[in-house]
């Protein structure tokens, strides 16, 4: 708190400059497990300050770890010597000026709430449930606690606390390495039901104990698990930003108000959704509220931040896709699977990468449980498969959507291991293009 006040004072102390400060306190307790035992217990703490200092349209950025006032002032003096020599960025207009504050709720530190002993108890229960199938568990059980202060010379002085929990368990067969996955993510550990989690994982394990087959490349009717459609939409999200318009790589360029997907597709970005990990502000400190992205197949809004909003003369909205929610349909999961004569159930995607971002063409693989559907039932595990597809074709191929959705956690993995979530249902897709088999599970 004291340092936060110092940052505000510095903004006032140097009126010839503008400052943008991000001050982070971050800690993690990160449990890695493999072969139904601990691999590592990792604890990390970090305090850092990211600063961008502006003089007109000239700027210089620097970061300090474990920052103190004296060190910061010393650095500011150094920047004063450099900044006049730098070329301008004529597209820079001003820093964020949205002063709207969220409730800035206090949050429980889940590192304290979910102790290492508690994590081990949960993992032991899960292990016992799947051992009879000759499977072992692998994965991570993570709790973070992060406090972020965003302070700038336009009067922003905001705080955001985040304390996500992320449990990802892969059950792997000792016999043939066939793998299935179950995950939990959220900020309220009271919503974690170990019995249900274990039961759901065990059901997947049971489905994966049979024969493993291969399938030929070609077009298939598929049911995509929630995390798969979530992955596709998160990849497509990079095309929904104002920045992607500026870099000429947006699939949605010139398509606002146009119907580009089927009527059953509605997508919102909702950082306050009760089932998701919540965020108060975007990276500029702009208030982050619910925003419709696609409504009944019509593309409604780009996500617009401060820099590109001003540059492209678009209205800033603070959205950044950290809480995507897809509207549910009217079929049960069983009905989606039951309506397919011969097709595939895909649990998870892996190593997806754009071939051409503007065209939304990607290649990637299935992972952690791909199953053959025969006469409306999951019958056999299938080797992991490669798809080469346009994401726009996948979404246009959605024929039915499940009547309930699930919280899907994901992580940025690098740096401070930010954890996000999305709320997605199962979807049925026609004409899904499998381009080759990996011949492995």
């Amino acid at each position: 708190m004291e340092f936060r006040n110092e940052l505000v004072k510095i903004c006032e102390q140097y009126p010839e400059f503008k400052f943008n400060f991000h001050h982070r306190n971050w800690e993690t307790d990160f449990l890695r497990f493999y072969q139904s035992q601990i691999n590592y217990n990792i604890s990390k703490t970090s305090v850092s300050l990211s600063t961008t200092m502006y003089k007109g349209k000239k700027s210089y950025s620097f970061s300090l770890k474990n920052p103190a006032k004296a060190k910061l002032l010393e650095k500011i003096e150094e920047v004063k010597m450099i900044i006049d020599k730098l070329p301008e960025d004529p597209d820079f207009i001003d820093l964020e000026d949205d002063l709207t504050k969220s409730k800035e709720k206090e949050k429980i530190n889940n590192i304290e709430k979910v102790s290492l002993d508690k994590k081990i108890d949960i993992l032991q229960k899960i292990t016992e449930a799947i051992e009879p199938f000759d499977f072992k568990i692998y994965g991570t059980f993570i709790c973070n606690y992060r406090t972020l202060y965003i302070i700038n010379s336009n009067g922003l002085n905001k705080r955001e606390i985040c304390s996500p929990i992320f449990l990802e368990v892969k059950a792997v067969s000792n016999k043939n390495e066939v793998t299935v996955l179950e995950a939990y993510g959220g900020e309220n550990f009271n919503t974690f039901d170990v019995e249900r989690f274990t039961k759901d994982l065990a059901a997947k394990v049971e489905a994966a104990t049979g024969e493993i087959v291969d399938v030929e490349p070609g077009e298939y009717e598929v049911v995509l698990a929630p995390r798969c459609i979530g992955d596709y939409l998160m990849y497509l999200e990079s095309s929904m930003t104002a920045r992607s318009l500026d870099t000429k790589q947006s699939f949605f360029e010139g398509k606002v108000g146009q119907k580009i997907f089927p009527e059953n597709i509605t997508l919102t970005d909702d950082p306050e959704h009760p089932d998701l990990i919540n965020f108060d502000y975007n990276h500029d400190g702009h208030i982050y509220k619910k925003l419709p992205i696609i409504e009944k197949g019509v593309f409604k809004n780009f996500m617009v931040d401060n820099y590109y909003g001003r540059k492209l003369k678009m209205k800033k909205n603070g959205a950044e896709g950290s809480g995507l929610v897809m509207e549910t349909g009217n079929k049960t999961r069983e009905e989606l699977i039951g309506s397919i004569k011969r097709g595939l159930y895909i649990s998870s995607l892996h190593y997806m990468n754009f071939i051409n971002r503007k065209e939304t063409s990607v290649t990637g693989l299935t992972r952690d449980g791909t199953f053959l559907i025969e006469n409306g039932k999951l019958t056999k595990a299938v080797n992991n498969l490669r798809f080469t597809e346009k994401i726009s074709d996948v979404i246009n191929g959605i024929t039915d959507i499940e009547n309930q959705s699930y919280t899907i956690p994901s992580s940025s993995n690098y740096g401070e291991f930010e954890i996000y979530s999305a709320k997605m249902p199962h979807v049925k897709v026609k004409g899904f293009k499998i381009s080759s088999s990996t011949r492995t599970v």
Partner: protein
Amino acid sequence: MKKLVYDIINKLDIPEVTYADVRFTNTDDQVIYFEKGKLRHFGSDYDSIDLGVRVLVNGCWGFAGTTIFNNTSIEKTIKKAISNAKVGSKFRKEPATFKKLKPIKDSYFFKPKEDPFLMDDKFKIDFHEKIAQKLVGNKKIVYSYVYTVLYRQYKVYANTEGTFVDSMVYDTMPMMYVLASDGKETMCRTWPGHMNGRRGGFEVVRNVKMEENADKIIEEAIKLLDAPRIEEERADIIIGGGHLALQLHESAGHATEADRIYGKEISYAGKTFIKPAMLGNFKYGSEIVNIFSDSTNEGGMGFHLVDDEGTPGANVDIVKNGILLDQQTSQETAALLGVQPSSNMLASFADDIPLIRMTNFCLAPGKGSLDNLIKSTENGYYIDFTKTWSIDDNRNNFQFTTEIGWKIENGKIKHIVKEPTYYGITPEFWGACNGICGQEEWEFHGTFHCGKGEPGQAIHLSHGVAPARFKNIVCNVKA
């Protein structure tokens, strides 16, 4: 900080701790980034200090890292590492074990030809602005950038076996990119490509000659808009060094990391199709394929005196005459496989745990020039500059797209093709290798961005390669 590390390792020399190591890193970096001809970002992260304490107690690893360097925080970090291991051992059935190593006490300080951290900032900005200006102006170039990341890291490593080593290295990563559009589609070109990291200082930026190659990539990006795609289902392909480095990285480098065999990275990075029984007999490639992991070569970013668990730098044959011989290992996985540790345990920063990482992972040179390899190719494609990469969980099925390719007919380059996309199965692909250029074409390529582990780490590594030819490859995959 050497004293701090020394003091901590002494505190950990207690009976309940079977083994411990302590690392300190101080990292400086600077980024210069021009977008569409304008300076979009200039910044630095100096004196970024991290501390990491790793202990083995009751056969279980515990780790704690911090960026806070006061006495309270340091004591807390030590205690946390020990308690993490102790509590964790309740859920550890097979204790981690390995052999004790001979202690090493040494220092290594790399000297760049041009220390970028002693150079005038204005000079570096002007240097890049000149290149940035060359990338704009053509109406068909709708987006461009040029950047360089300058980096140096000082590290102190100590363990309870008596090893104490400090080192300083410099790495540099320059890159430029143009995107061309005709209003219907977009095509890009980069220089020097995505494997653009090198050991060295500002001399690396000069050596890649970005300014001299700006017109060339603009012209190629625009030509690609009207270029044909590959029509044949299969063809012989010659892969240029920049992209071959990534092919080697994904389909041999990651595949031969021993932690994947034991499932330690299943959760995120994945597994491998390799099993312990394959060592010494599995045909990984054709007879001309020789692959080695060499942390003793100072020319690459993977050089070190000792890795992050005290194993001295080593040159290890991974594939010899096409046969899989060894793995990249830690002390623990080497013991499980019954081989010598290969000195591949590394962490990005001191507050990261060490993982099995590639160092200088190389394809040995064959014979002859690239010109001669092209001349000896009746029909095929020469492809380079990575655009898309993807490989499966077991490192068996890969698919790559490069930015550009050149059709070869009767030993001569004919015309360019857009987005050549090929796929293969790892041992079949390396088994189809029928030509590798010689030492005169062999050079280091590298990246700062090899991601692995949870929490994720991006590490600097190099690949020594020369262009190589692969026979009858599926090269016509379309979305």
